């Protein structure tokens, strides 16, 4: 059509689009400068660390850098039989250099991750290699220990050749790559992470359900009560927000422990006998109770803000048209609160899935979550790449939930206020 092709000109003859861009350029620069500090902040504190985490979780350069000559000579080796003399020679020179730099210990640790048994034979090789003669390194190395003559160990070294690896992710799911390069489950009695993942999902799910069940009536009351009462109630809801997370968790410990207030009360009213006090802490119950209480405001507030906008006359209309109070609620009120429910549930679930302090303090062994495992690897085993891998798995899990929610409910349907 002509009107689409024809350029519209301003009265001065400049094309309208050019003129508009010129007029808005200043505003755009101003707007950008306004958000620039925040953008920089986010890049420094969020994008970089996440990127670094991603790199760390797949980074496997250490061995690659320690054995550069070996891997170069291994390029032509098919891995079927023992490698040729050049490989042994290259390995010998690489190893000598590591001994000079006192890094052979690290190599043994790293190779031991891939295959058990490297530690002792590397130690032995270090001792014996001092008296090695020039030439025919294959014979000399194989003579150090019979494992050095086993092709499996050389294949294990070759597996560490790539600079990047997804082993940590497999480990996070209790799987590993065996000698033949197949991905298999670890032995049943050593599967710890899958249980943790499932437990994390389970606890996050139930905490969300409990929060929803408790928050819905509260939010409804908040939205319908007269101002003077609803303000008071609002303060009660927000009070936990203004209290330190640690203090709140600690007070749950006081309440829930076996000699705690709740148990004392149960004993007092004769619900349980004194020597049969209920264990409510250092197990799942503790995690459920404390996390539900702490995350409750995150459910109440989005629900409240949505409910506040629903006119009370809608329920009245439902009733006056012949709907029982239940039908009026279910067909009229409830569907209108779905955006708030979605927002609240998503918020609580995502917060719960990555919860750390509370389960660490009141969860005990059966109430800890995957984040506690991540912290454990960061602080105790110092296996940061594994911690990073699990952190990223958690992050992608959250993104999957977000995507699912968008598919099912639609993210535009969310209302936080």
């Amino acid at each position, binding site marked *: 059509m002509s009107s689409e092709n024809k350029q519209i000109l301003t009265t001065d003859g400049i094309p309208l689009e050019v003129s508009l861009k010129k007029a808005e350029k200043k505003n755009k620069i101003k707007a950008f400068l306004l958000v620039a500090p925040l953008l920089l902040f986010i890049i420094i504190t969020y994008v970089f660390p996440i990127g670094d985490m991603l790199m760390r979780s797949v980074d496997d350069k250490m061995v690659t850098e320690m054995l550069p000559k070996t891997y170069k000579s291994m390029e032509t080796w098919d891995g079927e039989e023992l490698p040729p003399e050049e490989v042994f020679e290259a390995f010998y020179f690489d190893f000598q250099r590591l001994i000079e730099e006192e890094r052979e210990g690290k190599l043994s640790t790293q190779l031991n991750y891939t295959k058990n048994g490297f530690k002792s034979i590397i130690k032995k090789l270090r001792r014996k290699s001092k008296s090695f003669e020039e030439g025919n390194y294959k014979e000399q190395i194989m003579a150090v220990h019979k494992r050095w003559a086993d092709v499996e160990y050389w294949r294990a070294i070759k597996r560490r050749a790539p600079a990047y690896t997804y082993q940590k992710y497999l480990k996070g799911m209790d799987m590993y790559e065996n000698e033949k390069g197949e991905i298999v489950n670890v032995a049943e009695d050593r599967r710890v992470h899958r249980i943790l993942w499932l437990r994390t999902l389970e606890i996050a799910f139930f905490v969300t359900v409990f929060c929803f069940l408790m928050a819905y009536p509260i939010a409804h009351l908040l939205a319908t009560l007269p101002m003077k009462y609803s303000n008071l109630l609002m303060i009660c809801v927000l009070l936990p927000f203004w209290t330190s997370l640690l203090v709140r968790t600690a007070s749950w410990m006081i309440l829930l422990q076996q000699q705690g207030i709740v148990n004392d009360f149960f004993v007092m009213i004769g619900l349980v006998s004194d020597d049969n006090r209920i264990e409510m802490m250092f197990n799942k119950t503790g995690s459920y109770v404390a996390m539900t209480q702490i995350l409750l405001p995150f459910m109440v507030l989005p629900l409240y803000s949505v409910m506040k906008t629903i006119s009370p006359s809608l329920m009245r209309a439902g009733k*006056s*048209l012949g709907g029982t109070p239940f039908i009026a609620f279910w067909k009229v009120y409830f569907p209108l609160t779905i955006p708030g429910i979605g927002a609240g549930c998503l918020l609580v679930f995502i917060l719960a899935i990555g919860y750390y302090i509370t389960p660490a303090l009141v969860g005990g062994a059966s109430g800890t979550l995957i984040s506690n495992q991540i912290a454990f690897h960061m602080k105790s085993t110092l296996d940061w790449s594994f911690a990073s891998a699990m952190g990223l798995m958690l992050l992608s899990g959250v993104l999957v939930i977000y995507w699912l929610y968008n598919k099912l409910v639609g993210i535009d349907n969310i209302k936080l206020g």
Partner: protein
Amino acid sequence: MASKKDFVKFDKVDKSYDGKILVVKDLQLDIAEGEFITMLGPSGSGKTTCLMMLAGFETPTNGEIYLDGNAISSIPPHKRGIGMVFQNYALFPHMTVYENLAFPLRVRKIPKDEADKKIDKALSMVSLQGFAARMPGQLSGGQQQRVAVARSLVFDPQLVLMDEPLGALDKNLRESMQYEIKHIHESIGVTVVYVTHDQSEALTMSNRIAVFNDGKVQQLSSPDELYEKPVNSFVAEFIGENNTFAGEVSDISDGRCKVKLANAEILANPISVKGKGEKTTVSLRPERALINPSDKMDNIHNGKIEEVIYHGDHTRVRINLLGNPEFILKIPNSSSNLDIKLGNEIKIGWNSGDARALDPK
């Protein structure tokens, strides 16, 4: 229409929210079947409370409400079978127009084909055929209002309550909707109780109007009677325009009374004054007073023109008359030969029958 005189009956109904102030006092009101009755009053006069008690959202503190002879105070709203149109329409925003109208039919378990017929009929009644699939948010205010009316009628209630339904519409739309609702009422003969604070709306639409003030019905009568013959000074003030003189009765005889003002005396029609010496407010509609009156009129006085406002079809003239500087006259613009100029002294006259001596303010 073979109708019951007391289809709806408020019997000695009191209502208080806080136990201290009565918002409705001793309400006694009968509404005939098929009638269009309007509760009119300023905000806070108790009219909406009455409607809510009838709908079942408020319970009377004392007294009983009867619908078709049955006491309904203990019946919950959803069992009363009363249609209602709310102030802000209260359409269900997550349902289409069709679903909104189907709601009262579905809860009554009416079969789908029958329900569809009823919905079609209701939509054509408000001339919104073809809008069934729209969401309320896609409709204009007037259209939403019509859907609300259709929804309140679709399940054939005997009684429909309307709570200031036109309050949110602009003036032109409001007027056309007034006629539309009136015509719907006439064509299906449903009993309507209508609440508004807009007196012209009440006058246009109703068979009878109940004027509320201070929790009481001040006057219950047809629109013309309400305008022509207000029984007290509140009604006279509230309905239409009104010129008042405050004074004291100096004589009553032959259905006429003399009222002594600050510096003059006028003749009036004694409505709520009984004897000499009583304080009174005399009320006179602006159109009942004439300029250059014939000698037959029994009140003729001189006044000075203070202000002239052109209104198109008529001119409003403010006159300082008998110590009242706010005396308003309406002069039709056909009589252009009259000499109405600022500052002129003119003669003004009216019949004592039109000047109603009411209770003092």
